[in-house]
């Protein structure tokens, strides 16, 4: 039997931080500063961007579209997924389209998005919402469909109504799937908002990336990338923790 992972001592992540940043600094200094920047330079740029308020403003804009879009994706995606799972015919008919849209890279459909939703907040919201919603509902539907047949039978034997079946069996059983959908959806959402900000109206953190790139200021670009990475890591880690809570729900079988 194998050991489970134990909690980290603070030392390890700290050590790896030192190693990674040290290596980055060394490599960063040896590369043309128009193309890449060492962490010291990124930190300096970060300070500058913070002072000018540019980074904070950009982050606000990004977070607004991201959170609203993701929130909508969650409140639409979960019921939609439940409906798709509980009404298999409905789900089966919709599924191919959702998979098709989900596997279509947004970077190539950006011009179509402009035509349909414009270049502003609504378009970014759509880029965040739609792909994220698909991830969440497809996973939810899968969870509902994979409800343990023995438990469905138990509830049936005690004459649970359709609603009671959903409340006591289908939804709790689907939760681990929903959470994993939430995580994939979060990743989709973050990438979506950045795509929107880089290729539609140039604003937010994605805009900072684009500007940094056209102005040949890699440190500026890396600042934005770092903020996105940290933001994303926080969201994903939070969802991970959430997911572990429901591990026991999968139950013994």
């Amino acid at each position, binding site marked *: 039997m194998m050991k489970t992972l134990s909690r980290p001592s603070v030392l390890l992540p700290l050590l790896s931080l030192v190693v990674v940043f040290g290596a980055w600094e060394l490599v960063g200094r040896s590369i043309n500063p128009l193309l890449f920047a060492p962490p010291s330079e990124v930190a300096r740029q970060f300070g500058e961007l913070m002072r000018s308020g540019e980074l904070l403003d950009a982050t606000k804009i990004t977070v607004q579209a991201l959170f609203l879009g993701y929130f909508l994706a969650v409140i639409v995606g979960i019921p939609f997924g439940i409906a798709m799972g509980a009404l298999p015919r409905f789900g089966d008919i919709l599924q191919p389209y959702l998979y098709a849209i989900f596997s279509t890279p947004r970077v190539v459909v950006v011009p179509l998005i402009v035509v349909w939703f414009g270049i502003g907040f609504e378009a970014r919201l759509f880029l965040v919402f739609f792909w994220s919603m698909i991830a969440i509902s497809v996973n939810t539907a899968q969870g509902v469909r994979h409800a343990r047949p023995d438990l469905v039978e138990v509830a049936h034997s005690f004459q649970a109504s359709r609603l009671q079946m959903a409340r006591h069996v289908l939804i709790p059983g689907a939760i681990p799937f929903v959470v994993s959908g939430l995580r994939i959806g979060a990743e989709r959402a973050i990438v979506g908002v950045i795509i929107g900000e880089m290729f539609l*109206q140039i604003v937010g953190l994605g805009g900072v990336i684009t500007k940094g790139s056209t102005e040949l200021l890699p440190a500026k670009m890396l600042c934005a990338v770092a903020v996105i990475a940290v933001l994303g890591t926080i969201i994903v880690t939070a969802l991970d923790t959430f997911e572990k809570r429901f591990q026991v729900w999968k139950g013994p079988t």
Partner: protein
Amino acid sequence: KEFDLSGTEVTIGTAQAQVLNLGTLRMIEMLTEWGADVTRVELPNISGLEAIVADRIDIASRSSDEILAGQSRGVDVVAFAAPISTMHYAVVSTPGIDSLEDLRGQSIATSGPGGFNGMLFRYMLTQAGLEPEVDVAIVPVGGSSERAAAIMAGQVQATVVFIDNWLALREQGANAQLLGYVADLVPGLSSRAVFAPRDYLAANEDLVTAIACANLEVNAWINSNKDDFVAYAMDNVRGANEDAVSAFYDVAMEINMFPTAPRELLDVSGYQALADLMYAGGELDDQLDASGFVDFTYVDRAAEMGCGTGAM
């Protein structure tokens, strides 16, 4: 007059294949005919300057403002030829906007900050007596296609796109109109250049001269031969439409896009005007002297050899 480039290897970075940039394509074909081993790289989102700095290409055939950006950041790149010698942008508006003045209180889309066309648009607005940002809202939007889509969707009332893009757009029935060509609105500016680091030029004189020669020759070929040009475009540009290409040709001739005289091909005053404009607009930190990075040596030499007369 013939060049023998056998044994010469070169990587050239270009923009995406477009009708207006066919000169570069044809130029590379000539180099190959002369025995050079040319790798052509279409760079969609990365500037030629970045690719040169990263040591991934030898020569770029891209927007001329990249040279200025390079110069101001200490990268000594030099223009020695030009596939497109006049401004290649069209200003497009929604119906009802019939002049720049009509844009008061409206929104326009330009590329991101630091972009070429954004700066031009600001300049034009100033010329027309409007104050950018105050009288007109300026929305930065990614690429030319996205800007075109923005105007179709009615999100903005005007934008700048490539001339060939505009013509294709019109051919596809877009509900938009031409406000004018930037070449007419702001004459004298140069739009696309062939450039490379100064020391590369010195070390590869034969190749560079051959490129200058091919540049002049191709321009001569274009000017003398509409049908061949259209046919060539149809063969080489994906999705090209014959009527649009034909219309483009007429516009190109009208604004003298492909000159054969060395001093028209590379115009220092155009570059200087561009540099001054960019400095005035805050895009450049320093005032630049264009004569320092526009090098006529090779086009002059090529012209002396008889290039640009259609003889090759």
